[in-house]
Structure formats: structure tokens, C-alpha cells
């Protein structure tokens, strides 16, 4: 457990530091955030034609209400946490790669639900929007990442764990 937590923290800090650098922001974070707004708008226009997306913004052409998708709302931090957890957990690389792909899809799919739901909650009630945006959805996205991680671990073959990969049983972490 101690080895996992140590690895997890190191990998997460490294990924997070990289994410904050200008090259990563311009090559990954901003394009993904723009794409997220566009995907959300495309989905919403299936049942609501009064929605447009420009840059990181999703706007209703009916009442002018708009939301801007910012850092912390694009699902990237939750994705980084999930990636770090999968990389830190002892598993074959093939399973790690599949798990990361499936995990990213699961986190981002729920994040699109979050963006769309917040867009409509905000048009209904701003106080409810703040509540859902700042507190509730943050926890739900993290719960999603936790569920994906637990399910991923259950798909791992037991044979993947050779004694050398596991910590000695006598050295239990606190």
C-alpha cells in the first residue's frame, strides 16, 4: 500500500506539473476544453437548436445564458488522477493502456453530462448552478473515477501479480 501511494503521488504531481506548463496547455488542455464545449453543444442541439459553442463557451441563443468551461471543469484533473492510480497499481502494461483509454472515456463522458446539466441548471436557477458546479459535480466526477478504477482492478488477471511485484507480506503499510 505504501509503495502504491508513494508512486501514485509522484506520478500525479509529475502529470499535474506537466499539465500546468504552457506547451501542455496550448497543445492539450485548451484544444480539449474547446472540443468539450463543441461536443456538448453538438449533443445539446440534438434536442435544443438554440445553443451555440465558441471557444470554451456554450451559449443559449434564446436567453443569452452562457457557461465557460475552465480549468477544473474540463475533467482533465480527474483523468490525471485516474491515470496516476492506474500507473501506480501493479498491472501488465496492456491492461494499463486499456484501462486508461476506457477510464478517460468514462470520465469525459460523465464530464459532458456535467457540462450539459450545468448549462440547463444555470438557466433555471443560478444558486443551484453554483452549488452543483462548485461542490456536487466535483464529488460525482471523482466518484466516477473511483468506480472506474475499482472495476479496472477487478478485470486484472491474478496471474499478473508475481511475488516480486508485490510488497512483502511482513512489511504491512500503516
Amino acid at each position, binding site marked *: 500500500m505504501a509503495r*502504491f501511494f508513494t508512486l501514485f503521488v509522484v506520478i500525479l504531481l509529475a502529470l499535474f506539473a506537466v499539465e500546468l506548463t504552457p506547451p501542455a496547455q496550448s497543445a492539450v488542455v485548451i484544444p480539449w476544453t474547446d472540443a468539450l464545449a463543441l461536443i456538448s453543444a453538438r449533443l445539446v442541439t440534438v434536442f435544443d437548436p438554440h445553443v451555440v459553442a465558441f471557444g470554451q463557451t456554450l451559449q443559449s441563443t434564446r436567453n443569452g445564458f452562457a457557461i465557460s468551461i475552465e480549468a477544473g471543469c474540463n475533467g482533465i484533473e480527474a483523468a490525471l488522477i485516474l491515470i496516476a492510480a492506474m500507473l501506480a497499481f501493479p498491472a501488465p502494461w496492456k491492461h494499463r493502456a486499456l484501462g486508461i483509454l476506457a477510464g478517460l472515456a468514462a470520465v469525459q463522458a460523465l464530464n459532458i453530462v456535467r457540462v450539459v446539466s450545468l448549462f440547463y441548471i444555470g438557466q433555471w436557477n443560478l444558486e443551484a448552478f453554483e452549488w452543483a458546479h462548485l461542490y456536487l459535480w466535483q464529488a460525482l466526477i471523482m466518484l466516477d473515477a473511483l468506480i472506474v478504477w475499482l472495476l479496472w482492478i*477487478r478485470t486484472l488477471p491474478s496471474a499478473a501479480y508475481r511475488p516480486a511485484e508485490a510488497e512483502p507480506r511482513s512489511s504491512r503499510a500503516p
Partner: protein
Amino acid sequence: MTLAAPSTIGRFVLRTFLWLPPCFAGWYLGAQHVAPVLGAAARVLVELFRSGILSSLERQGQVLIFVTTIQVHPAPDQVGVLLVEVNPLLYTYGLPFFVALMLGARAKWAKILAGAAVLVPFQAWGIAFDFLAQIVRTGAGVSAQAGLLGWRTEFVALAYQVGSLIFPALAPVALWVAFNRPLFGALIGARAPAMGHHAGTVR
């Protein structure tokens, strides 16, 4: 790749979901009573990082108001001190999340209370570096008065990002894993010997 039946995870998730609404309601209603404790902890962190910039800490409802020693000039003939407001709820929503996870795992209240106490430094971190980041964002003159220059500015920026984007959501989950190793082992089907050999039963 073999897929084990995720029924135990399903039951745990369902219980957690059911506990989330009452936990969030309780957290929100009790937030103003917890704010002074968090404010005091944040003040300790601020003093450790940069002593002498805080003169007092006030509270208005759920909002913490840091009264600084930093002088500002709202008009040429006026002098005041900088007040910085921080909403602690932004950094404490992990508490109801943690309690819901623990209740979903049917953990004992002693563990839940211990976990809530362990969360305090992480929450205080977020509050403290929100306060310091606001000072840095106010401007170079204010930042210089506070002694937040060079590496301190960079550290404040990184610590604020970690405190606002990583700690609030991650700390509850990490604590839940650490506090529920038997259940965790059962949930993952004891796939990792070092993490799951204490596996117990899940109701």
C-alpha cells in the same frame, strides 16, 4: 482479461449515492460552525509560509475574511488594510463526499471522525493558498509588501492549483482507501496481494 462480478462495487456505490444528499445537506448547514476551525488551521499555514502578513481572521456567515497588515491606497489621500475573502466551502466539499463514502462502506463513526480530522490540513491548505494567491493577483506592489516574490510567487501559484483542483476531491478518496483496506480488498477481489490480503466480507 477476466471480469469479476461487480455486485459488491454496485452495492457500495448505491449506498454512497444514497448517503450523498444528506451528507451534503448536513455539511452545508454546519459549515459556518466548522469555518473557524478551518480558518485557524489556514492561519497557521499562512504564518508558516509568510509570517507577519495577517493581523486577524474574521467570519461573515460561511465566508472567512483575512485581515492583513498590507497597506493599500484606495485613493491618493486614503490608507487602508487589505481584506481578503475566502469561501471555505470550495475546499471542504470533500468532507461530505468522504462521509458518504465511509457510510457507503459501513465504516464506524470513530473512523469517520478520525478521517474528518485528517482532512482538515488539506482543506486548510486550499484556504491558505487561496488567500495568498489572491494577494499575488492583486498586483506587484501588494505582492512585494507581503514578501511574496520570486520562488514564493511560483510556489503559491502551484500550491493554489493543487489545493483547489487536486486535494478537495482526491483527499477523501485516498483516505477512504486507507481507512477501509478490508473492504477495499473485497471490492477489488483481492487482486493485489499487498493491498488486498486483508480482504474481508462485504454485506
